[in-house]
């Protein structure tokens, strides 16, 4: 256990938070809604990946791709069915609905498959790899690689594709975007699709890393990713990435220093401190880009 190894662990855990946080922040940027069902989309992603590997016998990469496709559809469906008609309602109505959707997904999953956990197949074994003198599990590196690729892909979509530019335009000024002929509904659907695809990928990665998955597993990572998004400045894409990584590093650091009992509390202490002293987050003030 040297510091480089801890650093890699921290980044891996952090990149899972970052992937989930991106969905929170993109949805918030465009519809000003904290989508509390987002952690459950992450959970569904873990199960879809699990079944894709164990039942469909897909390899790791095809399983992730299939999972992302399915969770993106689920995200679009959630917005369409639950949130769209509440877009101009008071915020509290949408928030309450989001909590309802979250509970609905959790308990439907329990109803369908039971509440017992499942254990992810060990795809990479206990193989370790030496990097700069540190030994690390192969899956740590796989997580890192996939997260980085997905975040780069997201940056590319947001900055260089037509739909990405439309997402930024709508999140800045929806009415002005309408005057360009941009369909706000369609753009919001795309936002949910992208955010949910990332959450789905995070679910599979999480399963691979922590092996145990269950229908309520979305709760804590979901809340922590939300903290990460707030820490980075809710609405900011780079903020969500940095916030997730920081949170992962801090948690790993706290554990490494021997305070592992406090690991889960750290996120919420950070949240309280941010809300008190820096409500706009790290990137919330100077970075105007909102999606």
């Amino acid at each position: 256990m040297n510091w480089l190894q801890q650093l890699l662990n921290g980044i891996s855990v952090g990149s899972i938070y970052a992937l989930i946080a991106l969905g929170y922040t993109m949805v918030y940027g465009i519809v000003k809604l904290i989508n509390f069902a987002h952690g459950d989309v992450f959970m569904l992603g873990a199960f879809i990946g699990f079944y894709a590997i164990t039942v469909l016998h897909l390899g790791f990469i095809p399983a992730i791709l299939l999972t992302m496709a399915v969770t993106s559809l689920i995200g679009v469906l959630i917005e369409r069915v639950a949130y769209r008609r509440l877009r101009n309602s008071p915020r509290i109505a949408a928030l309450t609905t989001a909590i309802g959707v979250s509970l609905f997904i959790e308990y439907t999953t329990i109803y369908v498959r039971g509440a017992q956990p499942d254990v992810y197949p060990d795809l990479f074994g206990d193989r370790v790899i030496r990097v700069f003198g540190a030994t690390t599990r192969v899956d740590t590196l796989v997580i890192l690689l996939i997260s980085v690729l997905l975040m780069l892909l997201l940056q590319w979509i947001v900055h260089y594709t037509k739909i990405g530019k439309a997402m930024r335009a709508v999140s800045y000024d929806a009415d002005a975007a309408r005057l360009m002929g941009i369909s706000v509904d369609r753009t919001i659907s795309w936002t949910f699709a992208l955010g949910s695809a990332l959450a789905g990928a995070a679910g599979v990665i999480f399963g691979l890393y922590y092996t145990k998955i269950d229908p309520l597993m979305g709760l804590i990572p979901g809340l922590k990713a939300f903290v990460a998004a707030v820490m980075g400045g809710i609405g900011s894409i780079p903020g969500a990435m940095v916030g997730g990584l920081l949170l992962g590093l801090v948690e790993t650091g706290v554990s490494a220093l021997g305070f592992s009992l406090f690991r889960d509390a750290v996120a919420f202490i950070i949240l309280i401190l941010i809300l008190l002293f820096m409500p706009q987050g790290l990137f919330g003030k100077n970075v105007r880009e909102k999606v």
Partner: protein
Amino acid sequence: MLSLEAIDVYYGKIHALKGVSLSVDEGEIVTLIGANGAGKTTLLRTISGLVRPKNGTIRFRGEDLTRRRPEDIVALGISHVPEGRRVFANLTVKENLEMGAYLRRDRAGIQADLERVFALFPRLKERLRQPAGTLSGGEQQMLAIGRALMARPKLLLMDEPSMGLAPVLVQTIFGIIREINAQGTTILLIEQNAHMALGVARRAYVIETGRIVLEGPSEALRQSEKVRAAYLGG
């Protein structure tokens, strides 16, 4: 080309447009003048589909626009330069112009229109990669106009394009308005600067608290006692 018949718009209990009828013919510049809060912006937002009228009909080149979505209205050939410019500050100048052409697929045509916008506003070409939020007020107005032109509209709706600009820039913008019109685009122009507006427009309407109270050729309105007293400073 465009005709509104007995349009009523409400914001909750506020009756913002009261039986407004108005028409614009192909090739014209028509202006709508009125004081703050008279309902000018509401009228343009209603034409663009951002606001739904309670009663009345809007027709454009034979199509009923009355309850169409904004994106369909843009596709039919109406672009809107909104009040306060509303450029996407987080997007670059280039990206803003691309958003103006959002519904178009004809790459060559888009490129040609980009050149046309650069010809009208050489300043924008120098600032292409800059976030629109870093432009000056006048440059943002130019971008808002350029962005609307990128849809290659048949009818251009302009909401107080001279608002907040220095006198020299106001002259420039009005020159541009004439030029856009000379290139074949019909314009419905909203202004508080009645003097300038009556100078470029062929016909004019005057709106007061949601009602059209006067209409006619710009020249006639310029002579009217009422307009002189209320809008031209005596």
